[in-house]
């Protein structure tokens, strides 16, 4: 018999029961909740007269539709301008209080975007199954977790039973060997992967990211990569445990300490794929060849290296692709064949569960330091992913660098990633964004998103157009 992959090991260690129809009951170690996908689940519990199966597994926080404006935030829940959003946030507070679920409330230390908060508090531990009513839950796979998004009915299911009924996925390994060049970041790596395998490339699979590029990458960088597994079609993305994983876990709020930590770490170190493990699908990419990436279209696979031109309709091989490119160019208001660096940006968004951690803040600050946001840019938002990121960034004086350069320093939340609050693009506006989805209307009706790394977005804020961060000098053109 061949060896096991990390995913196989995680699956086996959480199997409660196999059903005759091929589905299985899987135990869930950590459940993270937020205001948008939980209210009906809590109500369902109430109607059925059920209680959460375990309290010490759930952790909640509001993030999706809270305001990031400091003045509005200071006014508390009552200060949320939109009534529906206000009620949702209040309902999360009420439900958590009622059921006794640990919540980091809107302005409390610890609050943040669910996928930033979980790992930084140590609520996400290696070897865990982690679920959340949000499709970017794969982020937690950076700590070798089996982590994926679930729907509202499943949120209720997990609350009530601590289990999910699910089927095993296939194994896929994406190997990136080599060394990343200067100015090339984890975001560029994952965008290059999606451009290569496509948005359906990972369908039905759990992806393990392997190879020297990921071994060299920080845990935060691995989170950026796993975060976007869903954009490659995979609900699960993960990286095996190494010493960086163990070091990352040390000393975090919910992590064990002392002997128990050592015992846990010993187990965590077994979470690597066996040498003779077999993957259903294997892909490999040359890490040396990856350049900074930018999305030009309306799907996360519509990505080009910053040195390239926007694709032309006539260069597409088949009719379906031609139609796709044509429609995307039209929506984006772009001309095929023009250099991607010719695209001017109206707004810049540095944030989201993909790129709002302290390393992202530092990287963006380094670029903008000593420069000014281009006068053609209407707004450049920097939204830290959590209260802890915000506090750390302020301790390092990063906020001052951003403010001096003319960027807005905001309160933690999802913000312009999905535009459920006031942070939105106007119709036709182009945005250099560090988020993860560039679908039509994602950042506001008619808005045009260009996905890129924090460094690239910061550079675009200064020059006013998309620019190769490797040749960026800070001069405006």
């Amino acid at each position, binding site marked *: 018999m061949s060896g096991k992959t990390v995913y196989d090991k995680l699956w086996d260690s959480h199997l409660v029961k196999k059903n005759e129809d091929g589905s299985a009951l899987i135990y869930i170690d950590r459940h993270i909740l937020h205001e948008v996908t939980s*209210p*009906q689940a809590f*109500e369902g519990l109430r109607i059925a007269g059920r209680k959460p199966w375990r*309290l010490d597994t759930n952790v909640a926080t509001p993030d999706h539709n809270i305001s990031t404006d400091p003045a509005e935030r200071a006014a508390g829940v009552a200060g949320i301008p939109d009534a529906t959003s206000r009620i949702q946030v209040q309902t999360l507070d009420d439900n958590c209080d009622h059921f006794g679920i*640990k919540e980091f409330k809107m302005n409390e230390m610890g609050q943040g975007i669910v996928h930033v908060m979980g790992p930084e508090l140590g609520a996400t531990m290696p070897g*865990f199954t982690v679920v959340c009513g949000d499709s970017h839950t794969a982020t937690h796979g950076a700590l070798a977790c089996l982590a994926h998004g679930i729907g509202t009915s499943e949120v*209720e299911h997990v609350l009530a039973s601590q289990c999910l009924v699910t089927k095993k996925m296939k194994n896929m390994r994406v190997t990136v060997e080599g060394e990343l060049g200067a100015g090339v970041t984890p975001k560029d790596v994952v965008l290059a992967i999606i451009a290569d395998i496509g948005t359906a490339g990972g369908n039905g699979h759990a992806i393990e990211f392997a190879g020297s590029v990921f071994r060299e990458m920080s845990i935060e960088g691995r989170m950026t990569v796993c975060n976007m597994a869903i954009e490659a079609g995979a609900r699960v993305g993960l990286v095996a445990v190494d010493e960086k994983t163990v070091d990352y876990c040390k000393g975090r709020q*919910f992590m064990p300490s002392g002997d*128990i930590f050592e015992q846990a770490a010993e187990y965590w170190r077994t979470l690597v794929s066996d040498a003779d493990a077999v993957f259903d699908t294997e892909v490999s990419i040359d890490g040396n060849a990856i350049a900074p990436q930018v999305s030009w279209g309306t799907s996360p696979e519509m990505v080009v290296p910053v040195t390239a031109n926007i694709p032309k309709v006539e260069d597409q091989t088949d009719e379906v692709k031609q139609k796709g490119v044509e429609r995307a160019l039209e929506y984006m208001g772009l001309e095929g064949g023009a250099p991607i660096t010719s695209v001017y940006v109206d707004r810049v968004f540095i944030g989201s569960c993909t790129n709002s951690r302290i390393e992202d803040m530092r990287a963006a600050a380094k670029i903008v330091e000593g420069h000014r946001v281009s006068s053609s840019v209407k707004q450049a938002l920097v939204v830290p992913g959590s209260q802890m990121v915000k506090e750390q960034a302020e301790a390092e004086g990063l906020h001052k660098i951003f403010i001096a350069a003319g960027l807005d320093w905001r309160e933690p939340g999802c913000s312009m990633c999905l535009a459920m609050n006031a942070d939105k693009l106007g119709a036709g506006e182009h945005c250099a964004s560090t988020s993860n989805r560039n679908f039509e209307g994602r950042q506001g009706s008619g808005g045009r998103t260009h996905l890129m790394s924090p460094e690239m977005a910061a550079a675009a804020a200064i020059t006013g157009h998309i620019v190769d961060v490797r040749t960026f000098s800070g001069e405006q053109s």
Partner: protein
Amino acid sequence: MKAFTQHSGIAGPMDRANVDTDMIIPKQFLKSIKRSGFGPNLFDELRYLDEGQPGQDCSHRPVNKDFPLNKPRYKDASILLARKNFGCGSSREHAPWALEDYGFRTIIAPSYADIFYNNCFKNGLLPVILTEQQVDVLFKEMNAAQGYQLTIDLVAQKVIRPNGESFDFEIDVFRKDCLVQGLDEIGLTMQSADAIKEYEKTREASQPWVFGAIK
């Protein structure tokens, strides 16, 4: 979930094909944080003359008197007679939530959209499938008689008419069992509660850090 074995009640009409979920519950009501309370907005656009808003008190809204379910004779209807492809369109679980909240326990139609059909079972609502001819017979009898009452016997898989005659219907054994026993998916998982507890015991013995971390 409420168990469903047998139900007797007044039948009411939704006499058109392809009733979509937006017709059952319009999109502006999806912003709600609730799963209940959709009853007053069931068929909102057909039922009222004005445009409904979430959170509004519907008791003072102008009612469309021509909409059959607004007629006094159908006031207490708990069985909905419908036409083919009922519940098509978006997958919103709010559609069965609204029907159930209104007071319907059963729908009788020649066919349903797949997702809607599935969603009904998750919410204790029984979607009965009869042939188009049989549904036609029921519509005719209902239109001819005030207070037309049907009995749905799920155990025997029969729709019993006032004259004592009945129509048989088919239903998947697993779904039938769930409804008869009042089991939803969560309820089913809860039947494995011992296995879950057993799993937790074993896990806690070898990996104590998994438990008790969040306080």
